[in-house]
């Protein structure tokens, strides 16, 4: 099967699943009675509608090619960083550093992927941004909470820009026998992470009893995690044909993606709570903000990228 055919099957399959979800949601909406039941169904339907939009946007960008894909992820980083820094207290002394983060660091990081400069892509934010951003703040001589402010800005840039940029960076990998199919790998990562999130939510709602970390994230349960992880790993193995992996390798890699995604959700939930918020934003109806949807992706993407790079790329 050619990459083109695989892509068509993949999008067709996702479309079919979403169509089923829409029909189920529509049926439930007509049957369910009671205040709380209706709220749950409305939220479910809002989420399904948002999924239609997200899948369409992603598919469209992929069809337009590499530049469009990079531009789209640069926008994702922009919105994610905006949500992160909106909730993070900074001071007027950080103004230049913050402007630079949005208008220089995001474009440069994605440009480096575009020109396939892997070496600088990998160190640009952990080294150069790390050294430059606090220098700009220090020049304004405001030392109050200086370390906290610098650490928070760097953290936001790491998660929202560096980590998320590893999703389209998958297009950089040169995998023997898999040339020109990087976009499928990218879709594979997003599919497993998001299916894992959805299935953990569903299993958690149906069977969830034992809370894993009630203080950080009351909706995460052992039953939800086990059910969701098993489901997502099964899907990951079944989708091996769009990847360069064998079915067994695909299962193993899907498990790593699921685990990292879970940790991402947990850690960013803790960050959110320490900043005193329940959702990162209101951008995506029913889901919260961009960061609420990308939290697990941000942790899974770099690890998936490097695993694939070490073991499968030329």
């Amino acid at each position, binding site marked *: 099967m050619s990459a083109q055919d695989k892509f068509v099957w993949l999008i067709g399959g996702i479309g079919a699943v979403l169509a089923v979800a829409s029909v189920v949601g529509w049926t439930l909406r007509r049957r369910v009675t009671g205040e709380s039941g209706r709220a749950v169904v409305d939220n479910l339907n809002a989420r399904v509608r948002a999924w239609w939009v997200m899948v369409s946007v992603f598919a469209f960008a992929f069809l337009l090619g590499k530049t469009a894909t990079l531009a789209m992820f640069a926008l994702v980083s922009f919105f994610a960083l*905006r949500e992160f*820094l*909106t909730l993070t207290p900074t001071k007027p002394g950080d*103004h230049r550093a913050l402007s630079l983060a*949005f*208008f220089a660091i995001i474009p440069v990081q994605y440009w480096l992927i575009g020109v396939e400069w892997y070496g600088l892509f990998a160190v640009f934010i952990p080294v150069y941004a790390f050294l430059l951003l606090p220098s700009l703040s220090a020049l304004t001589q405001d030392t109050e909470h200086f370390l906290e402010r610098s650490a928070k800005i760097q953290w936001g840039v790491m998660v929202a820009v560096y980590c998320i940029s590893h999703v389209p960076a998958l297009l950089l990998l040169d995998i023997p026998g898999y040339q020109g199919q990087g976009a499928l790998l990218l879709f594979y990562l997003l599919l497993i992470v998001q299916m894992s999130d959805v299935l953990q939510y569903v299993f958690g709602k149906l069977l969830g009893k034992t809370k894993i970390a009630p203080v950080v994230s009351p909706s995460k349960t052992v039953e939800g995690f086990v059910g969701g992880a098993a489901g997502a790993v099964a899907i990951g193995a079944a989708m091996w044909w769009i990847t360069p992996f064998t079915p067994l390798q695909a299962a193993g890699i899907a498990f790593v993606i699921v685990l990292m995604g879970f940790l991402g959700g947990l850690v960013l939930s803790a960050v959110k709570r320490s900043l005193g918020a329940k959702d990162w*934003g209101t951008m995506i109806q029913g889901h919260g903000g961009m960061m609420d949807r990308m939290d697990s992706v941000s942790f899974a993407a770099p690890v998936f990228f490097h695993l694939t790079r070490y073991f499968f790329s030329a």
Partner: protein
Amino acid sequence: MWLSSLFVGLVRALVGASPRWVGDGPSRAQRIYFANHSSHIDTVALWAALPPELRATTRPVAAADYWGTGAIRRYIVLKGLNAVLIQRSRSDPAADPLQPLCEALDRGDSLIIFPEGTRQAQPLPGPFKSGLYHLAARYPGVELVPVYLENLHRSLPKGTLFPVPLICTVRFGSALARIDGEGKEAFLQRAREAVVGLA
């Protein structure tokens, strides 16, 4: 006007500027919106948060000594924002500085004013100047709607050139109740508290 659409588009992309109607909701009634002032984005953010059909008849009030000088600034505020210019310092003691605002209100336009008179470094507004009181007294039928602009003191504070995109929600409160015989100080205090109450 293409410049208006450009400003609204830019501000939307940068800070969101989505409205939250805490009070009465949008209305065609003639209104004076009054808000806290901490950045150059404020006017357009408030404007962008209004429904498009209200934007055409809602005019920001800008300081003539700042925005009226230089061809580019004049063009931006008069053409792009359809602003009403006001003199902050009185050169002729006999002239009424509120005259241009009254003319706009007489035509039936709504106004956006920043009663502090200048941009502040902090999010909460400072003391209000008396213009709002005089307008309220002269136009008892116009609704006085308090507005709080969130986060813009961080986005583009006074003295900076490049913005930082942070999400700004524009909160519209309920129209200020009119109290017969209320003094100037008490009225201005109450108006300021209405804005602070939305923060």
